[in-house]
């Protein structure tokens, strides 16, 4: 059904949010075609507004504000803070490196065991005259007697 031609524009205005005047309201109450047309236009207006709402004005390219600041030559407030931070870091980092105890290299357990290991033949290499080599002979003291057939004990 088509709406009444003489009401067409006012129906469209009503769909777009214009306040309905009394004569239009009374006509709608008695004309199903116009009431239906108004409902359709209201739905279309909602679709149009939704589409306009989904549009967003295009965003500027990344870094555009930075480029503007650079071109203007505005002194950046962040720079003094950066300089201070760099100065503090230059003092603190070397101090920490000096004062902080360097971690000792950990020695693997296998290496420790290896350093403690003694060959079972070490005792075989000992001479029965070892005591003579360790002690300084003194005048008037008898030299110890070495028994060449002494048993050699192997631990």
């Amino acid at each position, binding site marked *: 059904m088509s709406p009444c031609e003489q009401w067409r524009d006012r129906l469209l205005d009503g769909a777009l949010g214009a306040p309905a005047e009394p004569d239009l309201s009374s006509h709608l109450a008695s004309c199903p075609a116009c009431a239906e047309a108004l409902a359709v236009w209201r739905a279309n207006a909602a679709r149009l507004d939704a589409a306009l709402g989904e549009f967003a004005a295009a*965003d*500027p390219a990344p870094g*555009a504000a930075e480029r503007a600041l650079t071109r203007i030559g505005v002194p950046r407030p962040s720079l003094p803070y950066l300089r201070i931070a760099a100065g503090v870091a230059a003092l603190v980092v070397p101090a920490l490196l000096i004062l902080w105890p360097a971690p000792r290299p950990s020695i693997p357990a296998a290496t420790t065991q290896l350093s403690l290991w003694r060959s079972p033949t070490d005792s075989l290499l000992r001479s029965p005259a070892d005591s003579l080599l360790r002690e300084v002979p003194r005048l008037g003291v008898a030299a110890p007697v070495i028994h060449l057939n002494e048993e050699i004990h192997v631990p």
Partner: protein
Amino acid sequence: MPEPDDSAPQFERLLRETYRMVYQVANTVLANPTDAEEVAQDVFLRAHSRLSELRDPQKFRSWVARMSWRLALNRLRSQSRSARRDGAWLALQSDTLDPEDEAARREFAGRLETEIDSLPEKLRSVLLLRAVDGLDCADIAGILGIPEGTVRSRLFLARRQLMKALFP
């Protein structure tokens, strides 16, 4: 208002807060991202050198918006008739993953953009400025130098014309 050099941190903050809006205002006129960025830079260059003229810092936003509009118009007039518009007024946001819905939305958006392009300049300006993030009818009235009621009536007429074109 302090001298510009003394108010550098404040100016940087104001620039960051308003840059997007200034760029978008220029882009509604020029429809060209490169030109719009150049205009935005010019706006802040002028604003920085004339900061002492701004008595009320609260009006910085509307001040640079008007400046952006005027500089963009000047730039458009200085261009040749084959203006370098690339139609990049608007960017369609997408939040649906359904390909059919997405295709229908894009098709409708394409028709809508064509119809916006064919609107009279006065109506198109108001409609596009209304799409700029954060601008209300009072802001637009300030930018265009027209009463707020005129902004509302032009906005209504623009929607009316679009309705007739898109839903005959």
